[in-house]
């Protein structure tokens, strides 16, 4: 579905383009008398020069809107949106519209409105045909000397920049120092160093190394025991054992997931004014931790992010419970959400922009967002590329996915459905079998009933004499009770022209039953009334269009979340356990009903949650109509806006309370005419029953479907019976046939005319007679003298069934929910000229970047096409995905990426310092099945990683920025690692993994709208990755140490230096509290001497032993503090306050927050 240009205000502009094209066919000619020239030179040219040329001429420093107004030619060509003048028609000229300030989005000149007389002059000029003097007529020449509009040449750009080039297969270079490399990657590093006459730094000592690796791999320091064990391990694979142990540690995922969260602007609230919750966002964080720990191949990981909801075989966790793949799609949905935006479509384009921006930087290292308003200024990315990606997102919507036990529950649902089908069929079979004797004499009953009703004037109830009924029954050997029942039916039918027995009742009413000859006129009129009703039902309001038609299965995409709506609509004529509105009814196993219309129906017994959504459509009528029954909610998601709060848009959510029968319900949507939307239907939580047959756009009400039974009409009208008895026989034949089918597990469509004729735009028939049979089967049973006696066996049988069903229901597992994408129907975006949704340009069909996947990619056939997008992204021929990821790994392990600008591989990014190494690693990465852990392992085991951080003198001269990796840089720890270290050292660290986040601790300095309750000071001891990230209430400690703001991709954090950092470590209550806690742990070993304690404290904080002088300084300090506190010398070595102060100092020594 192509999106139509919305915003009616702009439609004229589109029309204008066409009109203008015609207008210019007859170029304006100056009037012969020269008055036009004079007018132009006197009034117009000076005005243009003064008010327009700063931005719209060949002399403009920066040409705005691609529009030049300095020659006849350029005027004719116009700007980005085409010509701005329609000669002779000021009202159709954008130029005039602009100077009149009619459109708030197009006001020229932008600094202020022209004087009224000037506007009049311009209007007059356009009215005269916008004449431009001949002398100026060298338009082409004038255009050529304009500002050189650098033409966007995608292929040229692609050819000129390294990053677009395919991965080269490179071999490790030969090096002189052959003893040094431990891995081929070292040769790439060493070769460069040797080229500059440099030698790599010496290997770091074991204690330095183990601290480095612990932080890099799991984000926590080693314990003294872990460090000592490595120092003492003389085996040749001692180091590999450390690295492998860390890679296998559950904390590995916590460390690397946090890196990833920086890329996807992870937060658990929506920011904006009230900072609303995104309640299940943490499920994505847990997904990441599990994925990194499970070493999910990176191409799979990327695919899951882009289209994890669309995989035919999603990745299920080892326990067989969790659909992991679908959880990854939450990354798209973690951005800011605005509530109550005045311009709802602008809000969407901003949201989508953030999604494209994050996706581009994270996976491709490309700043796609720069192509929103114009082709990228530097990179081979066109505006069309940008908007072709926007379509993928606008074709997908947001949902709460039930991601656990999906397959299990699907199987249970199938069994429940089969059970229900079987129960319904059996109930009907039993009751119809019991009713069979009556049905076999139906003609007799009908005839007798017809004779028992007197002809009376219309509107007066016929009196039926009980005695006469008895007599008649005896006479015809009929059951009097049954006969009474039929008489009642005919009475009802007589008053309802569409009742299946109406024709017969009509004849009876007019006394025709008593005469042998049927009055053909009466029967004809009854048949004509039925046909007229069918015609009425087929007469649809003008201009009505279908949004979703669940009357005809397969006519629209079936888009659902979870199992409430099953696998498809329930067909008219299908038996089902009733739309049970009460729990009691469900417990009893349900009553059986027969559906009249095909419709999407939520799980009749409310066993499963779920949602049904329509395809995307453009709102084209002031009203949307739903054909619904039951209770629930309809949510019109306009331009993907779902943060419904505040004064606007509350009306997009509407409660449905429609009762048991399908009815049309209207919603006023005129505020959103021209916008794109879809509707989500959710059943009421208590009643669980919601049915949706169709969604229509129409200015006036659509007709109710006809209640005429098409099969019955056929049977009567094809060869009209000639007598009442014959008509009664006809009824008996049809009814018995239907009863046979119903008792034999019929198919619903056998009871109604073929599905093809049944659409939302016309329902010519409903299986009314079959429904009547199902409803009345019990009454037709012969021994109905004692109804209880008949229903008892059925009731018992039903109760048994109910028990069987309850057992099945007990197997259902309730899944938690998580944010995820739900695929819709395909929607293409338009190129939005200058990024504005008010100026849509050409369509931009969904595809991946042209510079990577080529100009002629296969069209997307169904759905959003995100899976195709993921496949194109992770194609090994796309050099970005693999290069960007290995570069991130390098960045995290070695402090600086081979491409330092890790999120930008474009022209404005940094060039790779060692391009061969980058390609080597990327190639190896792919060859090694995209294993992140094995890539980290290789790097960690390399000699490069194991170098000391002490540079050589020569290196400082030759390569002061260490781009050649002569030594390991010294790095400051991230905020999370600092806090986690403090907690581990103090003994407070709670190693429990996963689950809802701990609320952020609020200080008295954190205030604002949407302020939450404060969390505990120490975050319950949980690692920092489990602290809640609230956009408007970010942790001051995390921010001070440069945790990035969650709004765009940040692959390389800034490392700032500000007094708040020192103040936090000096005075923050958390730090002081943990120092005290650590001191108690230090003192717990009563036998240790102060010296031993100090040594252990150094090992704990820095993974090394103190030097003599460090120890002496610390000892002196203990004395000094003790003295200051007035303690006796003997007491100083055991006073917790003194030791807490020493602990506090060690947390403030810079070595604590730096790794070397």
């Amino acid at each position, binding site marked *: 579905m192509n999106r139509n240009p919305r915003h009616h205000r702009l439609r004229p502009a589109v029309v204008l383009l066409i009109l203008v094209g015609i207008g210019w066919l007859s170029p304006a000619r100056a009037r012969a008398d020269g008055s036009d020239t004079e007018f132009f030179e006197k009034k117009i040219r000076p005005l243009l020069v003064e008010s327009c040329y700063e931005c719209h001429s060949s002399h403009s420093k920066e040409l705005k809107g691609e529009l030049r107004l300095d020659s006849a030619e350029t005027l004719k060509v116009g700007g980005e949106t085409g010509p701005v003048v329609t000669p002779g028609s000021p009202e159709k000229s954008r130029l005039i519209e602009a100077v009149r300030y009619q459109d708030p989005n197009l006001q020229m000149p932008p600094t202020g409105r022209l004087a009224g007389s000037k506007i009049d002059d311009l209007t007059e000029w356009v009215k005269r045909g916008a004449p431009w003097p001949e002398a100026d007529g060298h338009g082409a020449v004038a255009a050529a000397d304009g500002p050189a509009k650098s033409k966007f040449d995608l292929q040229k750009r692609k050819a000129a920049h390294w990053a677009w080039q395919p991965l080269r297969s490179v071999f490790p270079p030969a090096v002189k120092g052959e003893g040094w490399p431990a891995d081929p990657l070292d040769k790439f590093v060493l070769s460069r160093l040797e080229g500059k006459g440099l030698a790599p730094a010496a290997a770091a000592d074991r204690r330095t190394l183990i601290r480095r690796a612990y932080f890099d791999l799991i984000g926590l320091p080693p314990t003294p025991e872990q460090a000592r064990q490595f120092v003492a391990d003389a085996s040749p694979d001692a180091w590999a054992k450390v690295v492998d142990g860390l890679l296998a540690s559950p904390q590995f995922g916590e460390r690397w997931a946090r890196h990833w969260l920086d890329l996807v602007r992870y937060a658990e609230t929506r920011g904006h*004014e009230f900072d609303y919750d995104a309640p299940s966002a943490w499920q994505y964080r847990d997904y990441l931790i599990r994925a990194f720990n499970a070493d999910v191949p990176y191409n799979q990981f990327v695919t899951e992010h882009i289209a994890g909801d669309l995989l035919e075989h999603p990745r299920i966790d080892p326990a067989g419970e969790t659909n992991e793949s679908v959880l990854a799609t939450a990354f798209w949905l973690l951005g800011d959400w605005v509530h109550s935006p005045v311009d709802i479509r602008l809000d969407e384009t901003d949201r989508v922009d953030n999604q494209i921006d994050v996706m581009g930087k994270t996976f491709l290292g490309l700043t796609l967002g720069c192509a929103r308003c114009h082709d990228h200024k530097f990179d081979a990315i066109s505006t069309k590329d940008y908007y072709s990606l926007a379509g993928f997102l606008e074709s997908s919507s947001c949902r709460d996915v039930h991601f656990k036990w999906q397959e299990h529950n699907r199987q249970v649902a199938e069994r429940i459905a089969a059970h229900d089908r079987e129960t319904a069929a059996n109930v009907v079979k039993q009751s119809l079998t019991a009713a069979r004797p009556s049905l076999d004499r139906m003609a007799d009953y009908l005839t007798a009933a017809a004779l028992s009703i007197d002809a009376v004037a219309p509107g007066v109830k016929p009196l039926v004499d009980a005695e006469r009924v008895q007599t008649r029954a005896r006479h015809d050997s009929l059951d009097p009770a049954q006969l009474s029942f039929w008489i009642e039916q005919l009475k009802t039918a007589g008053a309802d022209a569409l009742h299946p027995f109406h024709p017969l009742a009509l004849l009876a009413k007019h006394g025709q039953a008593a005469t042998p000859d049927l009055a053909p006129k009466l029967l004809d009129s009854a048949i004509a009334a039925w046909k007229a009703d069918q015609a009425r039902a087929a007469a649809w309001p003008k201009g009505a269009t279908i949004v979703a038609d669940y009357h005809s299965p397969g006519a629209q995409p079936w888009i659902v979340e979870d199992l409430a709506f099953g696998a498809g609509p329930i067909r008219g004529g299908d038996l089902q356990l009733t739309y049970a509105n009460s729990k009691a009814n469900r417990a009893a196993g349900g009553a059986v009903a027969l559906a009249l219309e095909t419709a999407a129906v939520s799980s009749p017994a409310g066993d499963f949650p779920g949602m049904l959504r329509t395809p995307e459509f453009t709102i084209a009528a002031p009203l949307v109509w739903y054909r619904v029954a039951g209770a629930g909610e309809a949510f019109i998601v306009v331009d993907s806006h779902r943060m419904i709060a505040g004064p606007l848009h509350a009306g997009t959510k509407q409660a449905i309370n429609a009762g048991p029968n399908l009815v049309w319900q209207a919603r006023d949507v005129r505020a959103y005419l021209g916008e794109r939307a879809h509707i989500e239907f959710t059943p009421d939580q208590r009643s669980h029953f919601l049915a949706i047959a169709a969604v229509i756009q129409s200015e006036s009400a659509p007709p109710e479907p006809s209640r005429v039974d098409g099969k019955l009409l056929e049977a009567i009208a094809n060869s009209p019976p000639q007598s009442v008895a014959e008509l009664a026989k006809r009824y008996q034949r049809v009814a018995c046939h239907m009863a046979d089918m119903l008792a034999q597990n019929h198919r619903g469509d056998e009871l109604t005319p073929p599905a093809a004729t049944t659409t939302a735009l016309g329902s010519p028939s409903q299986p009314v007679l079959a429904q009547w049979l199902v409803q009345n089967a019990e009454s037709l049973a012969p021994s109905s003298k004692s109804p209880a006696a008949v229903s008892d066996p059925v009731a018992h049988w039903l109760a048994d069934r109910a028990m069987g069903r309850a057992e099945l229901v007990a197997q259902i597992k309730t899944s938690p929910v998580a944010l995820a994408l739900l695929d819709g129907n395909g929607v293409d975006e338009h190129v939005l000229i200058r990024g504005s949704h008010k100026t849509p340009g050409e369509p931009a069909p969904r595809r991946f970047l042209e510079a990577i996947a080529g100009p002629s990619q296969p069209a997307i056939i169904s759905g959003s096409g995100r899976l195709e997008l993921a496949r194109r992204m992770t194609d090994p021929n796309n050099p970005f995905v693999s290069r960007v990821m290995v570069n991130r790994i390098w960045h995290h392990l070695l402090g600086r990426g081979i491409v330092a*600008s890790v999120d930008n591989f474009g022209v*404005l990014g940094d060039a790779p310092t060692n391009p061969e190494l980058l390609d080597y690693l990327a190639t190896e990465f792919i060859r090694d099945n995209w294993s992140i852990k094995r890539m980290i392992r290789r790097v960690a085991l390399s000699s490069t990683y194991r170098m000391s951080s002490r540079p050589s003198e020569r290196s400082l001269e030759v390569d002061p920025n260490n781009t050649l990796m002569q030594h390991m840089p010294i790095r400051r720890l991230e905020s999370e690692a600092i806090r986690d270290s403090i907690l581990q050292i103090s003994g407070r660290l709670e190693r429990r993994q996963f689950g809802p986040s701990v609320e952020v601790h609020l200080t008295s300095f954190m205030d604002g709208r949407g302020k939450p309750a404060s969390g505990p000071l120490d975050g319950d001891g949980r690692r920092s990755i489990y602290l809640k990230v609230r956009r408007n209430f970010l942790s001051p400690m995390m921010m001070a140490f440069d945790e990035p703001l969650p709004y765009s991709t940040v692959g390389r954090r800034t*490392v700032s*230096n500000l007094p708040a950092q020192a*103040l936090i470590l000096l*005075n923050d209550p958390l730090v002081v509290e943990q120092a005290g806690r650590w001191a108690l742990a230090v003192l717990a070993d009563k036998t240790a001497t102060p010296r031993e304690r100090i040594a252990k404290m150094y090992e704990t904080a820095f993974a090394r032993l103190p030097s003599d002088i*460090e120890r002496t300084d610390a000892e002196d300090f203990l004395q000094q503090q003790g003295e200051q506190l007035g303690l006796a010398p003997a007491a100083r070595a055991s006073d917790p306050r003194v030791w807490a102060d020493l602990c506090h100092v060690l947390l*403030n020594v810079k070595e604590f927050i730096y790794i070397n």
Partner: protein
Amino acid sequence: MTHHCRNFAPQPLSRREMLAKCAGGFGAVALAALACERSFGAELIAAHPAPAAIPFASRPPHFSAKAKNVIFLYMDGGPSHVDTFDPKPRLAKENGQPFKMKMEPTQFNSHGATLASPWAFTPRGQCGTPVSALFPLVGARADDLVVVRSMVSDFPEHTTANCFLHTGHGQLGRPSMGAWATYGLGSECDNLPGFVVLNGGLIPPGGSDNFSSGFLPATYQASIFKPQSPPVANINPTESQPRLQQNKLALMRKLDRHSLDRIGHVDAVESAIANYELAFRMQMAVPELTDLSGETAATEALYGLHAKFAPTATFARECLLARRLIERGVRFVELTCPAIGGNDRWDQHGGLKAGHAQNALAVDRPIAGLLTDLKSRGLLDSTLVVWSGEFGRTPFAQGTDGRDHNPFGFSIWLAGGGVRSGTTYGATDEYGYKAIENKVNVHDLHATMLHLLGLDHKRLTYRFGGRDMRLTDVFGKVVTGIVG
């Protein structure tokens, strides 16, 4: 350890001397301000030699300028321009009649009739700039003000408009203008942060992200001072005696020295060490700053420090603190409004008369006092004072007695710092609905503010995410008409 601010310390110590003094001979080391070396805009690096010992060391402007500091008076919620600085007699004439211009969608979309201002306007000062009765005392300073009556914003909702006014972008995440100014010029004060927000009680929608450093180093984010003691987080030592903390710091210096000997002298680590010196000085400077006991009774009265209306007293304290911060060389000070119970900021969707009257009462005297005080101390010339909300309000009613958001035209004013005072600039239409003459977009305001500080908004860039980012994005034009 007293304040060392150049504005009023006649002969400041040299940085080296000072560091030597502060740090007991320890700190005189060459320090790089930031570890993220390449992130600096190339131009800034060229224009500004390696910054000295403190992270926000003063840097020269692009060109000489009068304004050195900024006080930004943020009027949260959007004051109504047609009730304050932009008189529209036509509203009175057509009061209660259907509004004659086409009305754009608004936040509440509940458009009422044309609504006259409940307040009279009179010409004020020598210049005769009309100011409404809402601002009797600020009106008296009309000769100090340039009133811009043709402001426009791109956004009609609080959060986006707020964010736009603060950061030049409608979504959160970009650096605040205070962060940009401090990034561009550093600070003249070495014991206080360069960008301070005095929080009167109302944190604007969007929260502290409005004051963040965005992608700029965290160095440039605002420190939020609250009207409480202590005003800044973690500023008070937790030790029971000063000596205990001093002992700790002394040991820390020694141990830092030892570990530096082990790992080598690394700029970033040495900077972090120097940072403790600044933190230590801040522990002294902040209490001294907020101790108002040295102010005269006349000054206190001038600002309204003891006003009966509590919000006035709160804002008075903020304004006085703002002056004290400026005196100490702090580059950019923003004031947020005090909370007034029952009235939602300046955001009078209903109850315009009562709400605006109270909001104005809270700020009128303190602001007038601030202008008077700055002038009498010779600080107004070097201090740019900006008064602005995030948008204006509709000239037609919301309901019967409120006004909805109006980004199409509104008024702000600037004072001091080299502006063309005693004038007005630009105009809205005759209803005050839309700016029609000399429109000033928020980007233009930013460009002009930077210009007044001696910074070219197009040259003040920072490389992030593949672009040289600016406060003014790709927009902005210096409004020369308001520059003196």
